[in-house]
């Protein structure tokens, strides 16, 4: 095989792309991955990971502020040093970025540095990036291949997504931020308006609120985190408001006036009344859109729909030999969905037996605000809408020993079963550490357990996880500690 010829080339080294590359290498395929900017993509450079580092600082801040209630006295004042908080976050990213480079090397995957363009079936041309890299940029790993023509039997597009911009409120990187700027403030703002209350918006709102910033969240829909179960959303909203967040729902930012060092957001409520809020910055967090441009998709006739590449359950596009996975292949735009989609795609390509198409109903979602929110499966409303006769179980953190001991007694777990079959249709959580708990229900759902198996499962005491079992018991009128 010629030097520049591969079995598989993956465009984009985000969590979807690099995991797919590793799986491809494991399956014995000669694999290359193209990256134009940051190994590891948005997730570990500008998304999931660095924000978790920031939120950890926020969490420690929150705990410290409540030290007294644990019998602890902090001498002096607790204050955030923005530079160090950001530096820690960048350090975490740098470490993982280097880790991806190591993984590529270990699995003998060629890294091609530059921007890829599909020129004809089975061929890409790698050239200079069409956009400047977001700074700070980690250096490219050693031994990468450069610009040139490369061929592969299978080309997987995993170019991810970028912040969506609303017309008239386009981010400028100075007063109007996206997550890129919100993640590396040079100084702590005094006030912020966050537009959008999805996972990204609400996490930044939560972080900055913990840092003592006045934050107003503006959400178009009726509830914050609108994809979540309504009951959980409302619960979370109450908890967030208690922490001092100003939340406006069924409201939209219609206009932003910029001054030298401040913005004024014009916010229209559902009755059409407009109020103005002035703040240091506005964070635009109105979702993300697929990176489908400059890829040569049009030349090859790859079908797209609403900004995403159209694929079947195995990542195949309408053009033979071209595949897409992850954010660029459509929602939900989550790292773990991209990884799984990538593995399905490459295993299908390699002819691994027993590969099943993606089951979108079993993709969990986590939001790391305080309190955390996590869910999998159908919301109560969706379950009813799909015609299920349901049983709902709930359990509150304030009745769980471990939660009380942790001083984290505000939260709830809600489960939804199909009444007839006992199928676990959905699980929804709000409260401390629920992002770590949800996986128990994801496994249960994936193995198709019914309420019976969950009731027969022993949960360790004392843990927060006991609430999961209690919520199941509650759905069947058998709750013990409530």
């Amino acid at each position, binding site marked *: 095989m010629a030097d520049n010829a591969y079995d598989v080339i993956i465009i984009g080294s985000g969590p979807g792309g690099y995991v797919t590359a590793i799986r491809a290498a494991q399956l014995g395929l000669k694999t290359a991955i193209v990256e134009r900017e940051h190994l590891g993509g948005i997730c570990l450079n500008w998304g999931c990971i660095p924000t978790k580092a920031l939120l950890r600082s926020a969490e420690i801040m929150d705990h410290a502020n409540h030290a007294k209630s644990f019998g602890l006295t902090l001498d002096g004042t607790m204050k955030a040093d923005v530079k160090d908080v950001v530096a820690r976050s960048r350090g975490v990213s740098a470490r993982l970025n280097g880790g991806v480079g190591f993984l590529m090397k270990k699995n003998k995957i060629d890294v091609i540095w530059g921007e890829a363009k599909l020129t004809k079936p089975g061929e890409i041309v790698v050239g200079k990036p069409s956009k400047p890299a977001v700074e700070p940029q980690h250096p490219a790993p050693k031994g990468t291949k450069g610009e040139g023509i490369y061929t592969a039997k299978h080309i997987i597009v995993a170019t991810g997504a970028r912040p969506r911009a609303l017309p008239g409120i386009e981010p400028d990187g100075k007063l109007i931020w996206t997550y890129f700027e919100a993640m590396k403030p040079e100084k702590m703002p005094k006030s912020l308006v966050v537009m959008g209350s999805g996972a990204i918006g609400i996490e930044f709102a939560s972080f900055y609120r913990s840092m003592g910033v006045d934050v107003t969240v503006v959400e178009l829909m009726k509830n914050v985190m609108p994809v979540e179960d309504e009951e959980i959303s409302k619960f979370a909203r109450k908890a967030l408001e208690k922490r001092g967040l100003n939340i406006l729902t069924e409201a939209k930012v219609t206009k932003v006036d910029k001054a030298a060092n401040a913005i004024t957001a014009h916010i229209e409520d559902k009755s059409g009344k407009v109020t103005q809020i002035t703040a240091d910055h506005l964070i635009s967090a109105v979702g993300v859109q697929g990176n489908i441009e400059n890829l040569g998709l049009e030349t090859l006739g790859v079908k797209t729909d609403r900004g995403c590449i159209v694929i079947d359950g195995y990542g195949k596009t309408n053009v033979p030999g071209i595949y897409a996975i992850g954010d660029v292949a459509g929602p939900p735009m989550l790292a773990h969905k991209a990884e799984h989609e990538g593995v399905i795609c490459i295993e299908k390509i390699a002819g691994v037996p027993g590969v099943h198409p993606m089951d979108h109903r079993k993709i969990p979602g986590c939001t790391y605000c305080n309190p955390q929110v996590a869910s999998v499966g159908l919301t109560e409303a969706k379950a009813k809408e799909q015609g299920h006769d349901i049983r709902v179980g709930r359990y509150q953190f304030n009745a769980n020993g471990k939660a009380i001991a942790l001083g984290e007694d505000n939260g709830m777990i809600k489960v939804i079963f199909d009444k007839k079959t006992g199928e676990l249709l959905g699980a929804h959580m709000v409260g401390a550490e629920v992002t770590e708990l949800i996986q128990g229900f994801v496994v249960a759902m994936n193995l198709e357990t019914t309420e*019976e198996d969950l009731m027969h499962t022993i949960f360790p005491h004392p843990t927060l996880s006991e609430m999961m079992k209690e919520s199941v018991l509650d759905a069947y009128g058998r709750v013990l500690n409530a």
Partner: protein
Amino acid sequence: MPINITMPALSPTMEEGNLAKWMVKEGDTVSAGDVIAEIETDKATMEVEAVDEGTVGKIVVPEGTANVKVNALIAILLEDGEDAGAMDSTAGSGTGAGPAPAADAVPAAPANNTVIEVGAKAATDPMPAPKTADGGRVFSSPLARRLAKLNGLDLAQLSGSGPHGRIVKKDIEAALEKGIGKAAPAAAAAAPAAAAPAPAAAAPAGPSKDQVLKLFEEGSYELEPHDGMRKTIAKRLTESKQTIPHFYVTVDCELDALMALRAQLNGSASKDKDGKPAFKLSVNDMIIKAVALALRDVPDANVSWTDEAMVKHKHADVGVAVSIPGGLITPIIRQAEMKPLSVISNEMKDMGARAKSKKLLPHEYQGGTTAVSNMGMMGVKNFSAVVNPPHATILAIGAGEKRPIVKDDALAIATMMSVTLSTDHRCVDGALGAELLAAFKGYIENPMSMLV
């Protein structure tokens, strides 16, 4: 899907109670809210209401029975359009029939004191893992088991698409869509080695073990416990002989033309590069084809009996009894009337080998519309076989042997084979059986007609 009505717990501590009185009788139609029975505990008498509408299919525990355990099956409710036959699949499923304590029953405590919550009952009912024919475990998700039970499917008949062949929800949905895997009585009684829940033996039993052993000197024998296959054979064939009115028709067939044709066909088989012929027909392969074609020609004999209707099959699926260590199994050549002899022969070789190593899949030995049992190779002249429901016929094949016969009023020698057809007289009458056998004899004696 019949609904099990079980002994309700009238209070959280109640473990058993007396079934004081039935307010309904078998065949009665009830609607939700109707009082169907009175239950007594040491504390009180309470009325039990139906929560579903339907027809009372069977009262399992008669009134006046004392000490009925909570959750024991007390009656079966049939839903609209169901017949009593549907109860079989329910009655044997876990809770056990009659007032006997249900070993695995969960002490459920329905919140409502007077209503049996059948829904909640079904939900807490332990779901025993299904077994394959040889007692192996059928891997399936809990949800798949629940769905199979709710829809009356037999998991042993399905194949799974999950990891390592695990049956998952998707497979159940596919089965329901295709209408396969029904654990209806007919299908459940498919082949001797098929898995079937063992309902409480209602039939008169033979002498007990103790009665038998008493007749022999201790130490003069060894006891070998029955395996699943032996139990199934015993149960199935006992049922067959007790419920199916058998009758038998015997004919002699001249085999010489068939033997000649067989030699000619085998000689003409193309060979692969190792010199292996593409097929090697046995006499039995040709018998399978002849039976299939005879059933095609006499379609009234290609049937299965049910109490309501005659099941008239569109294809001849011929089961072939294969003796295996510890019992027998009948792999099925499906649509044998459509298949060339070479295909039948190769399928039979493959399934015969896999039968001996117990590697047959349930769908390969369950069902069928008739069967062939051949003991010719063991020198048996003639015998009669037991019909294996849902078949209505079975053909017992004796040895081919040279016999003196009368041909054109003169004594001659010919290779002859005696065959005996056993039929289920409920659906295949005497003349019909004779007609089928005549058609069979026609193909055997004029074997060229099998090739066109």
